[in-house]
């Protein structure tokens, strides 16, 4: 049963990832990205990460993607631009070969290592959100604060960048 769900989420996320890159209209690309993000959140559920599932749905799908769609609709883009860098097409074949080789290597290796301190029985005792919160606010508090400062800087930067500039002489602005 888990295998069926994994195959579904993996296949749909890969297909919608390819569509995100390949579709012509930017809004269609954004909708394919929406499908990708939702199915990646399904993969998180399969990995017992419920809190990350919620964060993915709320932050990625609810905030970031809506921001993208908002900007896309604000700018009213045309779709008749030329599609690919012509020179980049020569890289596609070698890139696909390289990906196949890397996946072949990945599927062969056993990936074994030292186990950490959070086996599923311990995590499921109080829930994944509890475990993440305890870990974040004890061991990783410095990173948490740094991310807070970073987000504040990003907000201020976005406001400063997108602010309507003072009216200037159009010749002077273009020169």
């Amino acid at each position: 049963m888990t295998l069926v769900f994994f195959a579904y989420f993996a296949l749909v996320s890969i297909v919608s990832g390819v569509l995100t890159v390949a579709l012509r209209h930017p809004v269609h690309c954004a909708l394919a990205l929406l499908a990708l993000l939702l199915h990646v959140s399904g993969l998180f559920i399969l990995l017992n990460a419920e809190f990350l599932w919620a964060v993915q749905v709320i932050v990625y799908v609810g905030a970031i993607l809506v921001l993208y769609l908002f900007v896309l609709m604000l700018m009213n883009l045309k779709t008749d631009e030329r599609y690919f860098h012509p020179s980049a097409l020569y890289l596609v074949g070698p890139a696909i070969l390289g990906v196949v080789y890397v996946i072949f290597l990945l599927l062969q290796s056993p990936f074994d290592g030292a186990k950490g301190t959070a086996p599923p029985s311990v995590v499921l005792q109080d829930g994944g959100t509890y475990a993440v919160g305890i870990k974040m606010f004890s061991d990783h508090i410095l990173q948490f604060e740094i991310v807070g400062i970073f987000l504040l800087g990003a907000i201020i930067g976005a406001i400063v960048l997108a602010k309507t500039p003072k009216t200037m002489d159009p010749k002077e602005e273009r020169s």
Partner: protein
Amino acid sequence: MIPLSAYTAVSAVLFMTGLLGVLVRRNFIIVLMSVEMMLNAANINLVAFSHYLESMAGQLVALFVIAIAAGEAAVGLAIIIVVFRGKISTNVDEMNLLKW
């Protein structure tokens, strides 16, 4: 039981697709979307290793990655709006000046 390598394979495919999108597409917004896709692939890897190696640290780093992706999206879209206001184009090939 799904092997860990299956998750890493999905993540590798998604990452390469996103990298191809960054290199190949010309629309700046789609380039940013491809960057989001690459960050998601990294998240899958982090969460999968966190699950299989029974450690919480991977999920925490994935949370920080999501926060950084949010900041990147906000600043990137603000830059796009500024460029679009000046030049009426989102083609990455035509953006070759930092200031004019």
